[in-house]
């Protein structure tokens, strides 16, 4: 962040558009007290609660156990008092309207419920200032409405809420004041009642934007080549998830050559599993996957790759790149076979290939010998995208937006300029 001034009076819901980190300069005050340079514990003590975008819960513990983690009620000084904990949780639950059974295990909760626990957790620690980082990214519309009701109720109780989001409708819907941030700097402070989405969008981007462009459903103008049996075909696919639950249930679709298929839905409803199954990273419980009429249901990842399938994973850090490998080595991941002879990797061809892809995809810095870890997120994503089979035709990318948060990803950037 550059210089950002953010002041939120007690009660109103304020919505800054950006993130939070330790300050290099400037100061942070809570209720007039200078709290610059504090730790997370200080923040909790001062009544600030952060609800992270990615949940920080222990999946094997119950709701009540998660809530009291770090400040457990104790009977006779040593024994954890579960009943007291459950009772405390129920009381807080009814006060706030965040209804949840304290005995349930976190791993059994839906995403929306888990988020309720996150909010309860910070309230349980006595937070009066609530910071929510992109809370709606994982929620379905009814869950979002529920969340709004709870947040309004908290505000009416006198709590301060800082909502970090990039969705204009949410900002306008819920907030009382808005702080717009761009490139780490505060560019405007507005009263929600006196502004409109177009103005906020202009401040966010720095110039006029047409808000309707992205929303219209484009009619299909190109003729899709009707090659029968060509492309990717999924028949009655079912997948069992890690906890033995059916996560993909009897899904069928066809994607023809020259076609892009979008899969809509709230995160955590089987999309990841579907994509991973198509890519060959998960076992199929039932059904068929075929490319150009050739069945690949039981084939290995490498085999599917050769059949023309390439997969851009949702999680770049875990699956997409080997962080300690050089850019050049990462660019041949999955293509090792084509870059080696008699089991020996041809280094000069690897370098040649790397230079080619670096220039085609404008990967910076243009040095194939740097570890992937040293690249910026956007450039790491370019490496992932660049690495595809030369013969491939089917790409299932999972949630591409999430992969470069805080940094516009290359295609979007181009559209915006």
């Amino acid at each position: 962040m550059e210089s950002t001034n953010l002041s939120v009076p007690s009660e109103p819901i304020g919505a800054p558009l950006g993130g939070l980190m330790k300050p290099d300069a400037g100061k942070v005050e809570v209720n007039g007290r200078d709290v610059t340079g504090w730790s997370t514990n200080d923040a909790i003590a001062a009544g600030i609660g952060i609800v992270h975008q990615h949940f920080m819960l222990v999946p094997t513990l119950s709701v009540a156990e998660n809530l009291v983690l770090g400040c457990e009620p104790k009977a006779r000084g040593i024994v954890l008092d579960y009943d007291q904990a459950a009772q405390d949780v129920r009381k807080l639950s009814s006060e706030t309207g965040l209804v949840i059974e304290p005995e349930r295990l976190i791993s059994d909760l839906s995403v929306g419920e888990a988020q309720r626990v996150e909010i309860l957790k910070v309230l349980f620690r006595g937070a009066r200032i609530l910071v929510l980082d992109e809370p709606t990214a994982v929620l379905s519309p009814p869950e979002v409405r529920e969340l709004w009701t709870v947040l309004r109720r908290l505000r009416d109780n006198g709590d301060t809420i800082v909502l970090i989001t990039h969705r204009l409708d949410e900002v306008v819907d819920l907030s009382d004041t808005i702080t717009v941030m761009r490139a780490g700097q505060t560019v405007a402070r507005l009263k929600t009642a006196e502004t409109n989405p177009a103005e906020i969008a202009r401040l966010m981007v720095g110039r006029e934007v047409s808000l309707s462009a992205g929303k219209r459903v484009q009619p299909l103008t190109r003729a899709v080549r009707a090659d029968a049996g060509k492309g990717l075909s999924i028949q009655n696919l079912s997948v069992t998830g890690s906890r033995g639950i059916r996560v993909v249930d009897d899904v069928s679709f066809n994607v023809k050559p020259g076609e892009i298929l979008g899969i809509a839905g709230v995160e955590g409803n089987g999309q990841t599993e579907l994509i991973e199954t198509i890519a060959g990273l998960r076992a199929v419980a039932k059904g068929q996957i075929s490319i150009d009429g050739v069945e690949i249901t039981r084939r290995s990842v490498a085999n599917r790759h050769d059949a023309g399938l390439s997969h851009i994973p949702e999680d770049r850090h875990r699956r997409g790149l080997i962080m300690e490998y050089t850019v050049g080595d990462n660019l041949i991941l999955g293509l090792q076979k084509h870059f080696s002879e008699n089991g020996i990797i041809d280094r000069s061809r690897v370098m040649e290939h790397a230079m080619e892809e670096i220039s085609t995809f404008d990967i910076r810095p243009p040095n194939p010998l740097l570890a992937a870890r040293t690249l910026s997120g956007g450039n790491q994503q370019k490496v992932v995208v660049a690495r595809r089979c030369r013969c491939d035709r089917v790409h299932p990318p999972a949630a591409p937006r999430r992969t470069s948060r805080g940094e516009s990803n290359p295609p979007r950037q181009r559209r915006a300029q």
Partner: protein
Amino acid sequence: MTASSAPIRGQKFSSAPPAWREHAEEALIPPLVALLVALICGDLLILSYGQSPAAVYRLLLEGTWGNAYGFGQVLYKATTLAFTGLAVSFGLRAGLFNIGGESQLAAGGFAAALTGLALPVGTPLILALPLCMIAAGFAGGVVGAVPAYLKTRFGAHEVIVTIMLNFIVLALLNWFIAGHLHVPETLHTPEIHAGVLPRLSDINPTFHGSAANLALIVAILVAVAVWFYLFRARGGYDLRAVGLQPDAAEYGGISVGRVWLRALTFSGVIAGMGGINYVLGYKHYYEDGFASGAGFLGIAVALVGRNHPFGVLLAAFFFATLSQGGLAIHAFVPKQMMDVLQGVVIIAVAMSVPEVTRVLRSARRRSDA
């Protein structure tokens, strides 16, 4: 997506320091810092015995690198440690902790001795050595393959299985020797008929009396082969990928289970081949308990050598020096001081690697900015 910038082909890389220098710094500086810490601890220990650190260290150097016999003993000890260290580091590169070096080494030595006994007297070394090595590697490989199979098939943790296999294999070997194969009144086999490796003293008489033998050359060749496999072969690319990020490796079409199987089995093969140093090079028979901790010390060697084959060679040499040096200074301070020092080095490396790496990286970022 199309290229928007000027073509890079033919143009020199960016002005950033070359990646290999970064690598070399991160590989070498942490162990050196650890060594420094260990030296300071050693000073304090020696002082606590009322001796002069300078005098004791001088004695240590004279007794190890200072004369041909001492140096030969260091090389002999380093040879076994190089094998077991390479074995552990090979597994670690695939993300697997092979604690079974001790029993793999013993099984390898046993197989080498059996082969040497089975061959007719007078079999030329050029034939006997490869046969004995294959036997040693095979025996170690079998011991390594068991945990590998149990891991890939049933998900059994390799640390538990390799530790437990140590007991089973060593007990089995003891039973073989004590019950069937020993020379009366001893716990060792008869002398082998073929496959005896020349000692360094046969080539250069100044090494007279020391056990150093040509297995040293074999160890260096194995290190080179491991280096080539890890960093030049496709199998090594896959193996390191699995060790660094198994999920990414799987995504890249690498069969993680198959890599595990290969890595642990070959880790056992390398440890097993270490058995030739004692059996073919030194005693010319298999003796119960000859491994005497060299398999376990391989873990420390791999750690200090930062899992790089050449680093492992250096670390093996270092640990062998400490162990031989303990004998040289025994008159002034107990030789167990060297065991303490070994422990200090291991802990110091374990601590300094993440810490020093972090400092190096943040310093680099500052100089970039």
